[in-house]
């Protein structure tokens, strides 16, 4: 169990500032994700924690011990690489045993530990296979076993699932989460996939252009985004200048400093009936008194997503597919309603 704290860590490559000075506390045993678009500095931050890059400024503490200048060899921090970085000339067993061998543990000890960890990742049948002969998912699990077997104080993941297909991704995600909970290892997980981060993490830091924009639990980030970027990146939210007035929302009036954040699943649409301008809905929904036009409908299994042109902007609405109606097709005029109790707001910038 270990806690990690980053104090004013920054990194520049020549003129380019990859990471602005930032502070971050990662609690013991947490599954912590760094979420952001590619090029936001999250991998650089991970490499600084691993010791593969030196920060340009600031310091790094592991259990109150300053490890900023410590070589990667001495940190006892595990890392699962994006491309796995397995040793291609070795078997599965040799790959996993390598870290124990350099620690000069006894042969017997090594064999026991490797076999136990291979069992956990369900690879015990493949121990003598050379790693290039494994499938992508199996290679991924070897990388995981190799990092776990040395019982690191902190385990780092650099987009470990990005080379797997969708089904394997979900499965491996479960394996990672389960093993992490069992071992109770503090983990930092880098990803650009917001769904993955939301599903797997205890806490998440959202990064953009070298700055941490918000840190919080998945629910906090999703339902109470601190700014426009987080709302859009995590929740794929819609933004309006609006407020509730009598009879409905007044949408897009000028002068407002803040934007109303509306999640796609909160937008209610119904087919506009000729002559009628008011919707007849339950009491918790309020009509916007304005119409939109559906541009595109995407059916993706559990949900249906509608792209709608609405008051000079494009908005996104979703419904569970059970409630989808054939009349909600591309080109259809629809009435837009919102829940009356939305008060989630972010500043314009």
């Amino acid at each position, binding site marked *: 169990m270990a806690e990690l704290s980053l104090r004013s860590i920054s990194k520049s490559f020549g003129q380019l500032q990859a990471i602005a000075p930032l502070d971050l506390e990662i609690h013991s045993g947490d599954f912590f994700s760094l979420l952001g678009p590619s090029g936001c500095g999250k991998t650089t931050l991970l490499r600084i924690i691993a010791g593969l890059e030196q920060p340009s400024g600031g310091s790094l503490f592991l259990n109150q011990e300053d490890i900023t200048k410590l070589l*990667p060899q001495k940190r006892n921090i595990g890392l699962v690489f994006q*491309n796995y970085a397995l040793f291609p*000339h070795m078997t599965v067993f040799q790959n996993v045993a390598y870290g124990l061998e350099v620690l000069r543990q006894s042969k017997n000890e090594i064999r026991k530990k490797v076999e136990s960890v291979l069992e956990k990742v369900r690879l015990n049948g493949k121990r003598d296979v050379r790693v290039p002969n494994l499938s992508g998912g199996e290679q991924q699990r070897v990388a995981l076993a190799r990092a776990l077997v040395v019982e690191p104080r902190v385990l780092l993941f650099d987009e470990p699932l990005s080379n797997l297909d969708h089904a394997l991704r979900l499965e491996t995600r479960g394996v990672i989460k389960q093993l992490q909970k069992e071992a109770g290892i503090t983990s930092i997980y880098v990803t650009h996939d917001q769904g993955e981060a939301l599903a797997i993490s205890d806490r998440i830091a959202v990064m953009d252009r070298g700055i941490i924009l918000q840190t919080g639990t998945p629910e906090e980030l999703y339902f109470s985004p601190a700014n426009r970027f987080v709302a859009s990146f995590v929740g794929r939210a819609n933004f309006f200048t609006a407020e509730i007035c009598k009879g409905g929302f007044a949408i897009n009036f000028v002068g407002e400093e803040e934007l109303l954040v509306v999640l796609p699943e909160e937008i209610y649409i119904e087919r506009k009936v000729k002559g009628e301008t008011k919707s007849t809905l339950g009491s918790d929904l309020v009509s916007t008194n304005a119409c939109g036009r559906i541009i595109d409908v995407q059916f993706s299994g559990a949900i249906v997503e509608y792209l709608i042109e609405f008051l000079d902007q494009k908005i996104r609405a979703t419904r569970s597919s059970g409630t989808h109606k054939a009349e909600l097709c591309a080109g259809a005029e629809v009435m837009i309603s919102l829940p009356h109790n939305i008060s989630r707001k972010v500043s314009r910038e």
Partner: protein
Amino acid sequence: MNSEKRLAPASVVLLFLVIFFAAGYILFPLVRLLKQSVQPAGVIFSFHAYMDVLRSTFVEAAFNSVAISLLSVLGSALIGSFLAYVFHSFDFPLKTISSKLVLVPLALPPLVGVISFMFLIGESGILTRGIATLLSIAPSHFALEGWWGIVAVHVYSFNVYFYVFVSSALSQLSESHGSAIDASLSLGASRASTIRRIVLPMLTPSFIGASLVTFMASMASFSAPFLFGGTTRYLTLEIYTAKLNGNDANAAAFAVLLSIVSVSFLLLLRWYQGRKSYVLVSKGSGRRSTVPHSPVVRLFAVAAAMVLVILLSLPVIIIVVLSFVKEGSWTYQILPHSFTVQNFVKLFGDPRVFKPIANSVEMALTATVIVVFIGVCASFLVVRKKFIGKRFLELMMNVPFGIPGTVIAVGLILSFNHPSFFSAQSILIGTFWILPLAYAVRNLPILFRSTSSGLEGLDPGVEEAAWILGSSGWQTLRRITFPLLLSSLVSGALLVFINSLGEFVSSILLYSYDTKPISVEILSQLRLYNVGGAAAYCTLLMILVMVAVGISSKISRVTLAE
């Protein structure tokens, strides 16, 4: 990563050794050559040697060299590209073995190729005599000697460059964007215009690359004009002749002029390779995509290719057959008639006959050790470290590739026929060391390149993964980096070994009685009309080469299978 910024003391020592080698045995001999050419004995500065050379035979020799090289490029291009296209486009019986036979000239020591041609189409060659008897005219009327003889040998030896370049371009073409051909056909283009407008333009880079390599190799060729050229003047021969006549200044002037031509072609080649080629990265399986041909075209193309393959294998067969010829038994007959295994028994039974073999193996091994040490250190430093003069060191490691062997040999003679700093104040000429040194200098670029590209291809994450697991820098090098480089290192080293084993060009200028290598001994045996003995040496060389190539391809197959 941070450890790569500053050079560790160990790296500084290695860098010093590499710089010592490059400065002493690559740069210094070239400078010495230049100096000799403008500073003949006693004079401070004079262009006399250049004037002398230009007035005498330079123009003729240069014209011959360039013209013969251009013809060699043309012939090699036609045959090599044709074979590559047929092998790529059609399936036919014995294709696998034929495609291996086509590559034989690549591994064959140049001298062996030339000698086999002498026995095939030279004035007393088997084909020449056969045709002469058939038509009852004098063999000298159509013996391929002089210009056309040299061109024939060059085309035999160098068409394989075109074959290799064009083959790899063709398979890349169909792997990475094979659908370009299908797309063109589906848009309604005819086969001819698909070949003309899609296939050929995409192959242009490899044509040009192969042409430059072939041209350089022809300009540097020594064995072919030496043994086959008759009275034809050739630049490499002029250097040799001037040196034998004791005219060091003229030899140096010839060498400088030839080097200028060769190095400019090397630079042109590197510049050209640095430019973008038509390679698109795309996913998907490597389905072979070709332009469909009618059965008649197919039949003729395959038949022509098979005839070429047989012609290209003939020299090797001839050498093997001749190696069983009884000493002194084959004189005026078309075909040899009495055979014996005595030649091979002697190779290992007679100490005098075995001596050149022992010499060559010992010197080739020494050269390989030197090349591996310097080449590996240099590529590590160049790929992994940052230091001032890195580009220059890299250039130095590549320069011997562009400089003809004759020039390197003459440079070494002029540098080490008197005490020098780089030879610990002793004279190297006439000692054992000068030959391995020459072999090492000539072959350094091969190993440097294979190791460098192996290192560059290594995923840096693999080493980082080892560090993270607690493995020290040295442990990582020993257990991760070296094992991963082993296959490119071993195949590079084997190539260096077989090249050194059959090396003729610098050997003939540098050997002494005690260090006579196989190649020079072959020549001596030919001068004694001992055809069988010479051919037995050649056969032994070919067997050694085959073993080395076999080991090398086995290693790379094991690595690939992983």
